[in-house]
């Protein structure tokens, strides 16, 4: 069985910065990343807003991810490697050639987070095409150049919900509305104003999504607003936020150190990058 001192699961900003910092401190770490390319979520965030904390630049996500990969050029970074399970200090790893085991002195889990999809929110209705999360929308738009709809509604008003608006604008798509169940928007203060004034997207707080309607594609959503039901014509639904950590590997409660967004809520990529470094330093000092 292959033995490694430190294994980092996940090659996003947190995992890659941890690996790089460990190597600066003279500790060899192996990064296992399930995608064919490292970089994590920023790979599909095509808008500006990345790189300031780490490189004192303002880049798009893909540019930032590319820079993280360059920074990792001399590290033991293995893409196309999925960790299937952790048992004690042994990892079950899948790659092109099959499944093998790897023993690790120390395991850092940096598998990130994902948005809660429609199903887990128990939103009823039919199952037409054109219902997706922001992350999936970004991958459609920035990685594949697809335009999945023209007039979607956006569910949620977190920080990432504005990312959904930006992504829509990038392909000339005008969201019908941003819908928030709470009485005020979740993102920091100027968010709602921004959406309305700059992007021309109406923000409806105190509004609940009841159901999605449509045969092949989305035709409308049913909403409840101030106790009244209404049907809003649209051709897509974007579920934003309500972050759920990518924590499937924690089922057997293995001894691992968490880094980055796998903790739960969404932090900025810069914050995750910094946290990866901090965790690396703790590991190097034998404190984590």
């Amino acid at each position, binding site marked *: 069985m292959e033995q490694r001192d430190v294994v980092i699961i996940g090659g996003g900003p947190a995992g890659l910065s941890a690996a790089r910092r460990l190597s600066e401190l003279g500790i060899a770490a192996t990064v296992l990343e*399930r995608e*064919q390319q490292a970089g994590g979520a920023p790979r*599909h965030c095509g808008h500006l807003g990345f790189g300031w904390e780490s490189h004192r630049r303002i880049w798009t996500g893909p540019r930032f991810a590319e820079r993280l990969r360059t920074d990792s050029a001399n590290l033991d970074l293995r893409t*196309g490697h*999925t960790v*299937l399970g952790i048992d004690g200090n042994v990892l079950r790893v*899948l*790659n*092109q*050639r*099959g*499944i093998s085991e790897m023993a690790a002195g120390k395991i850092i889990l940096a598998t990130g987070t*994902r*948005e809660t*999809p*429609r*199903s*887990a929110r*128990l*939103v*009823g*209705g*039919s*199952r037409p*095409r054109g219902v*997706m*999360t922001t*992350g*999936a929308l970004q*991958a*459609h738009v920035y*990685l*594949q150049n*697809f335009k999945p709809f023209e007039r979607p509604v956006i569910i949620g008003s977190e920080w990432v919900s504005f990312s959904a608006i930006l992504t829509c604008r990038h392909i000339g798509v005008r969201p019908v509305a941003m819908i928030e169940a709470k009485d005020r928007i979740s993102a920091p203060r100027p968010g709602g104003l921004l959406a309305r004034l700059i992007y021309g997207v109406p923000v409806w707080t105190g509004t609940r999504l*009841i*159901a999605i*309607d449509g*045969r092949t594609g989305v035709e409308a959503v049913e909403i409840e607003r101030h106790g009244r039901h209404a049907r809003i014509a649209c051709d897509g639904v974007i579920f934003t936020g309500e972050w*759920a950590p990518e924590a*499937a590997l924690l*089922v057997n409660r293995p001894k691992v150190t968490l880094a980055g967004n796998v903790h739960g809520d969404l932090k900025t990529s810069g914050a995750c990058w910094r946290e990866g470094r901090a965790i690396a330093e703790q590991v190097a000092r034998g404190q984590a």
Partner: protein
Amino acid sequence: MQRGFDIAVIGGGVVGLAILRRFAMSGLSCVLLERGADILSGASKGNSGLLHTGFDAPAGSLELACIRAGYAEYIDIRGRLNLPLVKSSALVVAWSEEERTKLAGIVAKAHANGVEDVRPVESDELRRLEPRLSPAAKAAVLVPGEHIIDPWSAPLAYAHQALAHGAVILRDAEVTGGEFAQGAWRLASKAGPVSARAVINAAGNFGDLVEAIARPPPFTITPRRGQFVVFDKPASQLVTAIILPVPSDRTKGVVLFRTAYGNLAIGPTAEDVPEREVAATDTATLERLKARALEMAPSLSGIGVSAIYAGLRPATEHKDYVIEALPGRSWITVGGIRSTGLTASLGIARHVAGLYASHFGALPSQPDPIWTPVPNLTEERPRPYMQGGEIACHCERVTRGEIERALEGPLPAGDLGGLRRRTRAMMGRCQGFSCSAHVEKLFREKTRGAA
């Protein structure tokens, strides 16, 4: 379509496909016409995936006979078609004293139906069998033969075997009318006219509408909707058996069961709906289902929901299946296969072949069957990822190769839903957060166009 066929089957659900397979394997020339962009567009796309013994089926019914025959044939052929069988057994659980009094009757009925290994289970044994079930469970009836299968791969395997025996499957081919003249049918369909010496109506929730082509329909379909909530994979560790309710006069109740793909699900509800095609869910019902699952297995709390879905049972005003031959019209009606068709389909196919032989002519001698194993989607048998490869859908561990193969061959996925059902891509806990754009790209590349 120029050629005339011996048999035209209307409807590519599990029942139509099993019938197509049976006739094609008997050496007749067969065509199947399906309205949807892919097979399994109707009732067969959203069921519980349980292989029933018939222990609770109406005594002496055709349904019971078809369930028993279908069950036996599935067990017999599944190895050669690479179809799974998760041997779970079922427990009919009494949650109240009143329900407990009904258990003896359930055992007696099962024995009368020929399912002899069914027996009562007292609370101690129940605790031992299902330690994670709520202590509110009082006693149960054990049905050792009830099992879990893959509701999509089975009909897909029947389709492939029929194709290997020369059958033709037409999709986007809704039958819109037909004429019977000189002992043959000429059907009008969205894919053009099709001629056949005999027609089999297996149109599921549209069965009565299709029947009107041949005669005033002797039944009316009122689709009965069933909604489900599916929990994430760790939940499948919590129960082993299929947990059935004691049926009451009011309701059949919902079932807590593992799926062949390693999840735990609860459902189905039973609601009469006017809609024949779109199986919609509603939040209030989903919340009730979820709450009920937590009552039954309290350790479910904290485990997330990965999927929600609904299916439409082709229910009629009759209790039993409506399967009959119209000798004067060269037509066989296969209607109202409401809630047991996944299990019974192979048995129904045998019964229909028997009707054909006695009314329309002997079946040619059977050539050696060609076996067409299908890709396995369940953890019960080896899955492709275990041999290595590039993973496209991480939650369900679907390889890129599996997706590419599902888009090729004699029956490539007709739409994204069909691709999902052939591979499980995008069906896991993230519901496509990480993979949907990539899968869509693979789909577009193979089908060369926007879907």
